[in-house]
């Protein structure tokens, strides 16, 4: 896995990337990785609130499922977060 990430880092950074370009690349990676999960978590939480407002008695179950959905959606942003550090290293 780490080998692949190293190759990816080299491909993204070119043969001899300057430190500045590495930092910019890491910033772009994290920014790009945060877009999708941001929208996704918004959809998950928004719909969970709608469901809780419609049926307050089901709030406990909805909340558990909402955290599950957030956890799955959030994973992609966290991969980007980790990858941005790996790209700098």
């Amino acid at each position, binding site marked *: *896995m780490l080998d692949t990430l190293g190759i990816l880092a080299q491909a993204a950074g070119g043969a001899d990337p300057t430190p500045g370009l590495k930092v910019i690349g890491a910033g772009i990676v994290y920014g790009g990785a945060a877009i999708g999960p941001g929208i996704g978590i918004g959809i998950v939480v928004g719909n969970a609130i709608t469901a809780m407002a419609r049926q307050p008695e089901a709030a406990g179950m909805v909340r*558990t499922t909402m*955290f599950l959905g957030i*956890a799955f959606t*959030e*994973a992609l942003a966290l*991969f980007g977060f*980790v990858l941005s550090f790996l790209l700098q290293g």
Partner: protein
Amino acid sequence: MRSILALEFPPVSHLVEWQPLYFEGTPFEVNKVVLLMWLAVVIVLGMFFAAGRKSKASLVPTGITNVVETGVEFVRTDVVLQTMGPAGLGYTPFLVTVFFFVFICNLFEVIPGIQMPVNARMAIPAFLAIIVWVIFNVVGIKNQGLGGYFKSMLFPPGVPKALLPLVALIELVSTVFVRPFSLAVRLFANMLAGHLLLVSFAVLTQALFSATIVGAVVPFGLLVALTAFEVLVSGLQAFIFVILTAVYIGGAMHPEH
């Protein structure tokens, strides 16, 4: 030292890598993170043994017994019964142990004088994820048989025939590789991100305090607020780790219909 916004910001490796204290140069190096991990183990064991002994002495729960009973009750009703149903109650002790261990490891992030989340080092979340991976695969093979487990994993019902090869490939990759990887990275990255956030605001507060005392008020207020937020994140990540474990084990116990 790297300068960001004219602040001297320590490089990331300085924030999470600690000098070896004992057995330097061997594979059994002990540093601050390892000591904290052992401390977490001792705290969890101590809590449960103390609570067990006290509840034997008197039936009315007080002090530590209340904490432990609330935790067990929470995992039982909000995690096991919600995701696995009554059939999964046998996994409650395992899930309670994982919950308290992860929670206390995370909580070291905000305890003054320690302030190092153990789970911000990849080894511990990775090992926990490997344990979970082994358990849910063994449970699946035991309950459904080797062929049955792979059949229900690779070919979910209700998929058009033409898409089956593609779906099988995606399901294989997502169950065998992505599940443990994302389980470990989620915990690790959340704790690392929280630690970096707290460090950033602490560095900012310190720099502004030495420049103008008044300017440090806002970052210090945010630092306090973020510390409270990180307590919430610690609990939430422990809860999410445990509930995903329960979902994976529950999914392996009963094939989808």
